[in-house]
């Protein structure tokens, strides 16, 4: 009797989750496989064409000067964005951990950009980072000029070669509060007794942070780097909203979009998508593997 009941529930459980699991298998993993197939094909134009050309699209990409710009831009953006978020994040978290009045207000203030879309952020920063000079100067340049910081006046995302660095600023604006929240969680998990012991031994507050707290925050830094790193590999909307489609600010996600849906080079677009997937996988899979193992042992 009990046995029969178990079977009935097992069947019911399967029926309940089967649609979702199937959907994920098809729409995530099936579609990835389908993309791989497209990336090996010579599909150009609206009608699908799966004629196999091997690694042709990938080789073409590696020889494509535009893709070289993409890789360079992604590297520059990632270094600045991840570095900036980690620096501001840990700084703000330590600042907020000092027991100052209004802590929760400031915490919410640093975090609110997370609630906004990259498009809104991009549209607003597009005007803050207006590169016009001289009598048409506006935005932050105008502000710098007015308060005597005119050496800071610059051409933002229209700076030759380094325009992508300017895009990292709104990205940091949006994600540093989140990084702070991650660090704050880490700080709160460090037992106060540890700091007390160091203080009793005569260690200064700065020494305690450098030698005890920061090393203990390493796991937080690592997960923040992975989360932020994978966001930076996918950066897309922010660039479009700040600057539109400009080759000087091109990244793989933008290239994929324009070459596929404007240019109809489906084969090439798919190969960019797959390369993006591989780079995210290299970054994320060891991390997921680790956290799954920790979960199963705990």
């Amino acid at each position: 009797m009990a046995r029969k009941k178990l079977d009935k529930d097992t069947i019911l459980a399967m029926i309940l989750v089967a649609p979702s699991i199937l959907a994920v298998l098809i729409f995530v993993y099936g579609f990835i496989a389908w993309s791989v197939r497209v990336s090996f094909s010579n599909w150009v134009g609206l009608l699908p064409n799966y004629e196999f050309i091997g690694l042709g699209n990938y080789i073409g990409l590696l020889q494509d000067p535009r893709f070289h710009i993409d890789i360079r831009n992604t590297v520059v953006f990632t270094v600045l964005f991840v570095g900036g978020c980690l620096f501001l994040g840990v700084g703000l978290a330590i600042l907020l951990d000092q027991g100052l009045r209004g802590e929760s207000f400031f915490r919410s203030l640093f975090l609110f950009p997370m609630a906004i879309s990259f498009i809104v952020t991009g549209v607003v920063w597009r005007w803050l980072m207006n590169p016009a000079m001289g009598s048409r100067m506006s935005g932050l340049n105008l502000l710098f000029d007015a308060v005597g910081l005119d050496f800071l006046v610059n051409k933002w995302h229209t700076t030759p070669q380094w325009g992508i660095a300017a895009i990292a600023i709104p990205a940091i604006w949006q994600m540093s509060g989140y990084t702070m929240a991650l660090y704050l969680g880490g700080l709160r998990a460090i037992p106060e007794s540890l700091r007390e012991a160091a203080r009793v031994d005569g260690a200064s507050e700065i020494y305690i942070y450098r030698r005890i707290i920061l090393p203990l925050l390493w796991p937080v830094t690592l997960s923040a780097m992975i989360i932020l790193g994978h966001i930076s590999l996918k950066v897309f909307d922010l660039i479009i909203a700040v600057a539109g489609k400009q080759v000087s600010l091109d990244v793989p996600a933008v290239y994929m979009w324009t070459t596929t849906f404007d240019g109809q080079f489906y084969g090439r677009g798919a190969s960019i998508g797959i390369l993006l997937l591989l780079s995210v996988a290299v970054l994320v899979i060891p991390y997921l593997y680790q956290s799954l193992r920790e979960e199963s042992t705990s």
Partner: protein
Amino acid sequence: MRARVADKPRRAPTRAWLYILLLFMSLFYLLPMYVMLVTGFKSFDEVSLKTMWNLPSGLAFDNFVAAYEQLAPHLWNSLRLVIPTAAISAMLGSINGFVLTRWRFPGADIVFPLLLFGMFIPYQSILIPLVQFMRTTGLYGSIPGLALTHIIYGIPITTLTFRSYYITVPKEMVEAARIDGAGLLETYYHIFLPVSAPAFVVVLIWQFTAAWNDFLFAVVLTNPENWPITVALNNLAGSQIIAWNVQMAASLVAAIPTLIIYIFLGRYFLRGLMSGALKG
């Protein structure tokens, strides 16, 4: 928490410096909000790039009216998208999370990593098949097609959020229900569902925000008349005809729903961000 904070030896000048630093940092985060608000409330005659940092002389709504006229249909599109997306995602997530918590099935060890990785994939790697699928099924260009997309690609995060919440339900309660003869559905209905409210709030907020703020799926999958707010805003910002002040007001209009949620339900919002690590 308070007690330990008070213990900290800290002299007054140090505190003052810390506050100055904190206020300085606040400026960085408030700057864009300041410009949006100040510009939004200026009248058309008062708007000029030269004086964009000045406060308005009075409260005018010209910019908001103009922005709303441009964006109204797209705000509706976003609502039509986001409400069913959040509701269906939460229901699916709850049921999936429950079943996966309660029931060790063959292959479970494979399903979790697959779900987890599904949260992180760059959507560029599935975009072409997705467009083909939408074209074949006739959903291309429409809001239901976009909602379906968000629901499906939201399954990993919603399922895992509910699962991590349900795992904290004491085993004894489940066991007691089983002894009382409760089946799978009764256990869900009487034991798990009643304590699910916080998880529902987290997931509803998460999917609402994700779908409201999404650009990639929306720009690829919808026709201009079905554009949600993000695509419409980006288009408006890219056009030469719409003045920058209207763009600022439009940005604020587009940001308001998620900002309101953040202001009132921020705690849950944060929990959503933390629970599933994060998808980009």
